[in-house]
């Protein structure tokens, strides 16, 4: 297990280095000059020259990369060219918002996806199975932004039960915080629940036909005990990996959902940053997301190894 962990940890730094080069390089392919984008429609040459100099945009690319990496080593992710605030502060401000939304969305996904997958597998080829499969297909195919707007029109405008958009921190009001996140968490969780349901169903079907399950049944164990204690534990192994990947995806910012519900998280931050050529923000957020993704994959590997000892060697 130790060797396994060491191997995984050793890969983190080279992966981050590769990701940083990729982020930095790809961003340079974007057409348009950030200084021009920031100078607005007046395009004052003095302002453009000042911005180029202040943000090292007049320096060669390798040197700019070096400045960036050197800054990160000192905890400085640069400054937003648009709102003139340190990128680190913006990340620290937005990360908890996105993390909370991602966590709630995962809860929704797990609460719907896993039970639906189990029931569909146990009731294979029945109306319940078909119904669950159709619901999953619906969840996968419905665009997030469209579902979001429909929910706003129903629950906010027509019924007046939930706030249409915005965000309140738990410290300000836990109740308001949850009320503002119910709809976006459902919209995001709904799509993931569909994937979870499909994976849980197929994994369960595989496990339910295994010898040890038949043995458990032969021993006279109850249906619930066979399914929940014996079958589900093994069936969940692929679902854990899937969950980690989906959670990583959510942490990178649910771009459309955050836009529709005006949630001030990573998604909104990165969209605005890309359109404004706010390089430092894009780089900082993507690097942070990549790091979260790597760590979640690592945790998934560890969880996988804990559940299935054969993978530890």
């Amino acid at each position, binding site marked *: 297990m130790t060797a396994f962990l060491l191997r995984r940890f050793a890969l983190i730094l080279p992966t981050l280095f590769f990701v940083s080069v990729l982020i930095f390089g790809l961003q340079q392919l974007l*057409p*348009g*000059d*950030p200084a*021009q*984008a*920031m*100078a*607005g*429609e*007046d*395009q*004052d*040459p*003095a*302002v*453009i020259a*000042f*911005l180029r100099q*202040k943000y090292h945009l007049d320096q060669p690319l390798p040197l700019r990369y070096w400045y960036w990496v050197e800054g990160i080593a000192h905890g400085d992710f640069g400054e937003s060219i*648009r*709102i*003139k*605030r340190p990128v680190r502060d*913006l990340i620290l*401000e937005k990360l908890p918002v996105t993390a909370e939304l991602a966590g709630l969305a995962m809860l929704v996904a797990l609460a719907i996806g896993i039970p639906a997958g189990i029931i569909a597998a146990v009731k294979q080829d029945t109306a319940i199975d078909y119904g669950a499969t159709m619901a999953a297909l619906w969840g996968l195919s419905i665009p997030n932004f469209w579902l979001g*707007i429909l929910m*706003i*029109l129903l629950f*906010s*405008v027509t019924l*007046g039960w939930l*706030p*249409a*958009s*915005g*965000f309140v921190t738990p410290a300000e009001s836990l109740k308001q915080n949850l009320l503002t996140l119910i709809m976006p968490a459902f919209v995001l969780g709904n799509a993931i629940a569909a994937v979870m349901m499909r994976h849980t169903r197929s994994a369960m079907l595989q496990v339910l036909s295994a010898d040890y399950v038949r043995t458990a049944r032969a021993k006279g164990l109850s249906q619930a005990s066979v399914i929940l204690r014996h079958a589900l534990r093994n069936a969940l192994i692929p679902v854990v990996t899937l969950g980690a990947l989906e959670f990583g995806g959510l942490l990178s910012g649910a771009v459309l959902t955050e*836009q*529709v*519900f*005006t949630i*001030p998280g990573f998604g*909104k*931050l990165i969209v*605005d940053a890309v*359109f*404004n*050529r706010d390089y430092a923000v894009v780089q900082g957020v993507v690097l942070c997301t990549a790091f979260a993704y790597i760590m979640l994959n690592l945790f998934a590997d560890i969880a996988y190894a804990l559940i299935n000892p054969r993978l530890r060697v």
Partner: protein
Amino acid sequence: MTTRRILAAATLLGFALLAGTALAQTTLRIGLAEDPDILDPTLARTFVGRIVFAAMCDKLVDISPGLEVVPQLATEWHWVDDNKGLLMTLRRGVTFQDGEKMDAAAVKFSLERHLTMPGSNRKAEISALKSVEIVDDHTVKLVLDKPFAPLLAQLTDRAGMIVSPKAAEAAGDKFGEHLVCAGPFKFTERVAQDRIVLDRFADYWNKDTIHFDRVTFLPIPDTTVRLANLQSGQLDLIERLAATDLDAAGKDSRLKVAAITSLAYADILINTNNGERSKNPLGQDKRVREALELSIDREALNQVVFNGQFTPGNQWEAPSSPWYVKSMPIPPRDVAKAKALLAAAGVPHLSFTMMVPNTTDQLSAAQVIQSMAAEAGFDIKIQATEFASSIDLAQKGEFEAYQIDWSGRTDPDGNLYNFVSCKAPPALNSSRYCNQDVDAELDAERVGGTVDERMAHFAKIAAITLVDRPLIYLWHLKWVYAMSNKLTGFTAYPDGLIRPQGIAMK
């Protein structure tokens, strides 16, 4: 007994809810279409930022809905020294939100800050200003290199905002994180992309016009969601209601709508003189450009794309503006004449590329123009380009035609000079149009004088540029607001700003 307790609890709850409602009504909640950039009037550049400033920072002078310059922090002004000096008398008894006195020294500090601060977005707007002289505590003289009539109009916007010297000096380039001005609301909190909260400034000089304790600005980019927030009662007022949402807002008995023709306009900029891409019949032959204009039905364009909400136009000023040159009205569509002009130019069928920023409205309009122009013999290829990239390409001359918006300025000079003058910044006159007669008239209108005197120069400029057509003006945007029908006292202004003075909740 139990029933009594329940009743008592219900009554208390009712009172609590009513109290909550009453408290909520001391806050004005405004939905913005974007998140503003830095809240420092010297460095800021976004339109939504100007809306926030309108609640925080009073200016030397303001505009009326009819575009006249009216007093704000300055009560009187007049031109001196052959229009090379502007003498301004300041309002007495005005304090900044940090308690400091607003006086001539503060005006000098603020204007000099606009002129000298690195990265200042105001420097170009008031570059004619050579120095600021303090005549006495409440009088300043703005000294100019040469007469520049548009200066007064510049002072109705961010360039005229006066900031607290003490707070600005202490904060340095971080002033935008805690701006201190002399407006009705003071800065309280900003959460990027979420909200900007301002609280009432108790010592505001015009405090009787302020009826809210707090203003909260909430950036909500999606127009449908912005309207949904208004309909569900989470907002009191939203700006830039989409033309497609106008019906829904109009039918909702809880809401009302206000609109005004803005200073902004959309046009097709034609590359007449900027590199290789100008060397084609569209760039070189004004008959071809006239044919293009004649192929467009502006009213139909307005109806199809904007539900008739915008104002068709053929000049840098809207037909409703006092600066509109009435002798040159919108030419009606005339396909036969357009075809004849193309034939005379020797290009009965002409293909060219039109660069268009990839926003829904602009692209829809481009498609309608493409279809109209095709009837006259034009084959327009639409090149949808992301905005920042389109600016870059236009400056480099890598375009033949470019459909674009200009956000508009109060003084007509600001809507014209930078696009047609030989001396204009190359970044704005992307077509590199240059005509010495136009320049002579532009120089003359800048000297100042009465409205009629300046209008005579604008009429001569119109007679040349509307025939040469380096730009074909298309429409003037309207600022459309939707608000709770309990809101009273809101006035729409052509600059699109939301002035909190007078707004109240019934």
